């Protein structure tokens, strides 16, 4: 199970990679393993902002569908367009090319309150 040390994590199995004033958000290796083959990532292309705890889209795997929950609140800067044609990037490279959304950070405390790698590991019972 790959759980990179440098990332932050949400209870809902998202990872958050801080880059200056914004962060990339994706789903963890554990989450993609549980979902299985991802076939569609459904996010409103006009989505402007996300609100902590709210669903901002869905991720469809062959067997199941799962909501994407915002790990913090902020303005949406970019949605990974590559996923439209290659949703399987979430399976093959969950922490890299399979990132999902880039969101501005307004309140750093929200990020700091997220799980670190050790806590996330505990969270998934590893």
């Amino acid at each position, binding site marked *: 199970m790959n759980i990179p040390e440098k990332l932050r994590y949400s209870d809902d199995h998202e990872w958050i990679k801080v880059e200056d004033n914004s962060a990339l958000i994706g789903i963890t290796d554990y989450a993609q393993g549980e979902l*299985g*083959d991802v*076939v*569609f990532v*459904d996010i409103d292309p006009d989505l402007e902002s996300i609100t902590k705890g709210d669903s901002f889209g*869905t991720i*469809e795997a*062959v*067997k199941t*569908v799962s909501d994407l929950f915002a790990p913090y609140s902020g303005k949406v800067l970019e949605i990974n367009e590559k996923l439209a044609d290659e949703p*399987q990037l979430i*399976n093959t490279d969950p922490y890299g090319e399979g990132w999902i959304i880039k969101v501005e950070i307004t309140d750093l405390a929200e990020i700091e309150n997220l799980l670190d790698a050790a806590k996330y590991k505990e969270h998934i019972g590893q």
Partner: protein
Amino acid sequence: MKKTKFYNIHEKLGAKIVDFANFKMPIQYSGIISEHKAVRNSVGVFDVSHMGEIFVRGEKALDFIQHIAVNDASKLGEGRVQYSAMCYEDGGIIDDLLIYKFSDTEYMLVINASNIKKDFKWMNENNKFDVNIVDESDEYSLLAVQGPNSQKTMLKILEEDIELEYYHFIKTKAAGIDVIISRTGYTGELGYEIYFKGDQSAAEKLWNEIFKAGEEFDIAPVGLAARDTLRLEMGFCLYGNDIDSTTNVLEAGLGWITKLKKESFIGKNALLKIKEEGITRKLVAMLSKEKSFPRKDYEISQNGKPIGKITSGTVSPILEKPIALGYVQKEHSAIGNVVNFNIRGKEIPAEIIKLPFVNK
């Protein structure tokens, strides 16, 4: 929870295991899509030992089967297999099954794992022919070897050089183990189902020999999840999804196995009446060009009005498009009709098409 004799193998292969019909079953190994494609393009192996095997023996074995099942088993020769169904008096479906004829006095009925208890009880309650009904499900293991390279694989390990025709079976040996092998399956591909008794070491020996024989074809283990997408691409019904006690064989599109001219069988009168009055809804196949796909129990609508419900839905790994089965009101069931899947508040158009989704 029961384990099949291949459980240790599944664990070693790193399969994801789920509880299904009272068994610990492998749902997935490498991934649904790659497993699915292994079967369509080459050959895959499924452990389906959870399926039930009921043996019916006795002078009136045929009379009994004719009474409980809708197809005409008198047309079945020795060494042949027939797809059939059992119905309640009201025409609702108890189970769908395969009937294997060994002789005039011995048949094997292969039933769904989740229905074993119910079916066995039903058969006994309706045994007015003094036949011997034995549930041998726990003794039998079952592997399905499916895909265009399944024959080349199996011929390497079968004692006899056989060319089985579709829905025929023989008793022979595979990897030195006594087996019943039939040219049947749930994938639409050339394929075999191999029934055998034996302990874990015999089971593992057979599995390993099959994989050795199929190595040159990149043979792959396939889980229940891909079994579901494979059968859905063909439009094969799944009990508990597309058919159950609340659906009848006529609306489910199983009229072709329902021989209403047969003298008598349980459910015949109700089905005759339904046929005469006409069915009110029909199981249809729907194909969408969008990306979002429906799942069981999602609503189907047309012009803003609900017209039915999805019973099975997925994205076809071969077409890479959403495919689904569902019941819609008869007047909306014509081929070519465009309906909507209601997916989490959105209406996604889909066309009713003729099965199968994937031509073989």
